[in-house]
C-alpha cells in the first residue's frame, strides 16, 4: 500500500555534521524531482548525545519519520549507533557504516565495554553492509570536517540522483573556501 516512499535514516553523535548532511541529501533529492520530508530532534544540550535524521522521498510523502522495519538505507556515522537503530531497517536493507568509535559515558567510565563485533552483528541480519573509513579519507583531503561529506558520497552510489545535481548542491551549500575539499571528499566517498 502507499505511495512508494523511500526512507533513509542517518544516525550518529552530536557534532558529526549529521543534520547538515541530511540537508544536503534532501536538497539533492528535491532537485531530482522528488517530494521530500526530513525530520530530526535537537535541543537538550549541544553535543554528545545521539542524533538521528529521517529522510523520506517519493511522489508524495506524508510522514517525515519512518516506522521501524521500513527504512531502505541506514547511513550510520558511528559504529555503536548502527546497532541502536538497526531495527528501523527493512529486511534486505542497506547499511553504510562509518568506521568510527565514539565512546559513550558508560564506556568512558569503564562500566561497560564498547561492543567489539559491530560489523559481525549487523552482517548477521543485513548482508548489504558498506564500511567507510570517513575520517581517514577526510584527513587525506586535508580537512577532518569533511567526514560527513565523505558519507554523503558513499550514500550517493545507492540513490538515483545524477552526479551533476550532487555537484550543483555542494556548490550551493559550501563557501568557495570549503568547496574544493568537500567535492573531493564526496568523490572519494563515492568511490570508497
Amino acid at each position, binding site marked *: 500500500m502507499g505511495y512508494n516512499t523511500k526512507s533513509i535514516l542517518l544516525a550518529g553523535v552530536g557534532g558529526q555534521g549529521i543534520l547538515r548532511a541530511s540537508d544536503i541529501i534532501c536538497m539533492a533529492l528535491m532537485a531530482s524531482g522528488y517530494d*521530500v520530508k526530513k525530520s530530526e530532534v535537537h535541543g537538550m544540550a549541544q553535543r554528545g548525545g545521539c542524533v538521528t535524521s529521517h529522510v523520506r522521498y517519493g511522489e508524495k510523502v506524508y510522514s517525515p519519520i519512518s516506522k521501524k522495519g521500513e527504512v531502505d538505507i541506514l547511513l550510520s556515522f558511528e559504529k555503536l549507533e548502527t546497532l541502536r537503530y538497526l531495527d528501523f531497517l527493512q529486511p534486505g536493507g542497506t547499511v553504510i557504516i562509518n568506521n568510527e568509535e565514539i565512546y559513550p559515558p558508560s564506556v568512558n567510565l569503564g562500566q561497560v565495554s564498547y561492543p567489539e563485533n559491530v560489523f559481525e552483528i549487523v552482517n548477521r541480519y543485513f548482508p548489504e553492509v558498506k564500511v567507510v573509513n570517513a575520517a581517514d579519507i577526510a584527513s587525506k583531503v586535508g580537512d577532518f570536517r569533511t567526514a560527513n561529506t565523505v558519507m554523503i558520497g558513499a550514500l550517493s552510489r545507492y540513490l538515483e540522483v545524477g552526479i551533476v545535481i550532487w555537484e550543483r548542491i555542494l556548490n550551493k551549500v559550501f563557501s568557495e573556501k570549503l568547496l574544493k575539499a568537500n567535492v573531493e571528499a564526496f568523490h572519494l566517498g563515492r568511490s570508497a
Partner: protein
Amino acid sequence: MKELLSGNEAIARGAYECGVRFAAGYPGTPSTEIMESFAKYKDAYAEWSPNEKVAMEVGIGAAVAGSKAMVVMKHVGVNVAADPLFTVSYTGTNSALVIVTADDPSLHSSQNEQDNRNYAKFAKIPMIEPSSSQEAKDYIKLAFEISRKFDTPVFLRTTTRLSHSKSVVEIEEPSAVEEDKTQITPDARKYVMVPVNARARRIEVEKRLDLLRNFAEEFSENRIEWNSTDSGIISAGMAYNYAKDVFPDFSYLKLGMVYPLPEKMIREFAARVKKLYIVEELDPFIEEQVKAMGIHAIGKEVFPVTNEFDPGIVERAITGMAVRQDALPAMDIPPRPPNLCPGCPHRGLFYVLGRLKVFVAGDIGCYTLSYMEPLAGLHSCICMGASIGMAHGMSKALKEKGRGKVVGVIGDSTFVHSGITSLLNTAYNKSDAVIVICDNRTTAMTGMQDHPATGWTLKGEKTKKLDFSVLASALGIDSVRILDPGNIRETRTILKEELLKEGPSVVISSGPCILLNARKPAAGKRLVVDPQKCTGCRLCLGLGCPPISWRKFQQEPELPAGGGRRKQEGVAYIDPTLCVGCTLCRQICSAGAIIEEE
C-alpha cells in the same frame, strides 16, 4: 520558487509574507527558530522578551495599537504567559494577535508533556494546527485573518515533529506593505478589565465562540477526503500524516482548526463511515468533544496517551498488531545521554557542588544535565526560575538543619526570565540559602540566544547590559561574590565561605559558554595523560568530561606504572581531538599525571 523549510522557518516566512512586522518571544525548544528566522527580515521588529508573560503583554500592546503581532513560545511558556492570555481573550485584540505554542510530545527537551490544545478551550480562544511546513506557512496567515475578523487572539499550535521537520514549501512574494494603521484609540470599556467591564466582555466571548463554531463549518482547512467508507479517521497536525502513511485508503476528516470543532461536519463524516477512529497525540482532546456529541468513536482505547506517535504506532493501534513479527532480538546497547561539552564552565561548579553535601535546587538549562553521575551536583528541576524559591522554602522549613546546606542554582537567562522576583524574596523574607547564578553570557541550551544581560538584542543591536552584582545588591543581598568556575580551588573556597554566612548570599559563577567562542582557538593547550605517572585512581573520571576515558590494561604492565601503591588495572586517556585544554582534570589530578601536549 520551492524551498525546503522547517515548520519553524515556514511560520516565520508566512507571517512575513502576510505583512506581520512585529513579534516577541522567549527561546524554548522547539519554538526558538521561529523568532530567529523572523528577526532576519530587516524591516521586521522582533525581540527576545525576558520571559513569555512579557512577550505576551508586548504582543497585546502592539495589537491594541493597531499592529499585527505574533508572540512565540514553547508549551510551558504559555503557563508563564497564562495570566494576560486569559484576559486578552476578553478584551479582544483590535488588530491581530497570534500566539504560537510549540508543544513537545515525547518531552524531547522539556520538563513536562502538557497538551496546549487544552488552553484553547480553557481560554476560549480558537486554535489551528498545521501538519506540514507548507501548511505552517499557510495557516499562520489564516490565523491572522481569523484574529482580525473575530477580534480574538488565535493560537497556532505546532509540535516538535512539525517545528523540526523540513518539507517542501512554495515561497511567495510578501504582500505589499500595508499602510501604517497604528494609532492611539482609548476604549476603556474594552480594555479596562475591571469587573463591570469584564462582565460585559465575558458575554462577548461566548458570542464570539458561537460565531467561530459556525466559521469552523466553512473553514477551508477543515476538510473531508472521501475514500473507502469502511473506516474513517478524524485527525489533525502531525498525527494525520502518520495515519495517511499507513492507511491511504481510509476516509479522513482532516481538521485544520482543532478548537472550536465543526460539529455538523463531524456528524456528517461519522454518519457515513462504518468505523470511526480519532487519531491524536497526547490528550483525548478531540475525542472527548466528539464523544460528548453522542458519536461512537475509537480513540484512546487503542492509542497511547503519552509520547508522540509514528506511522508504526498508528498502524499497530488500528490493526491490533501487538508487536512487529520481524523485529530483531533485543540488544544491550550502552546509552548515549547528552553531556556538558568539553570546556563547559558548568563542569567545575557542579563538580564542587556535588561534593559539598548540600541540596542543590536546580533550574532549567544545560546545567540541569549535572544531575547525572558522575557530577551528581543538582537535585531538583521543576520549571524556569524554581530554584531560588525552592531553595528559600527549603531553608525556611529546615530551619537550623538547613544552615549551610541549601543552594539554589540558576542560569543567567533563566534568572532574568523568572529569578529576579524570587531573589528579592530571599532578601525580603530573610532567607539563609546561597544562590548561584551560572553566568555563561547566553541562553545556551536553546542555541545561543541573547538576553538582557548579554548587552545585545535579537536584531543584533548593542543595548544596555544588566549587571547581576548591582541588581543583587539593589534587591537587598549584602553578600555578592564572583567566582571563576574554571578554578576548582577558588570555587570550593568561595562556596564554603558563603555557606557559612548567615542570611542570603549571591555567588556569580562567571565563565562564558565554550560554544560562544567556538570559532576562536581554544584558550588552553590540549592536555594528555602521562601513562608513566598515572596511578589509575580514576579521580579525573569524576568530571564526566567527554574526552577523558578509562583504558584497562590489555596485559599486566611490565613495570608498576606511576609508582601506584596498589595493583593498577589501567590508566586514564584523554582524546586529543575533543580536549579544549580547560585544565579542570589537571587541577584535580593528585599524581601530576596530566600535562600539556608536546
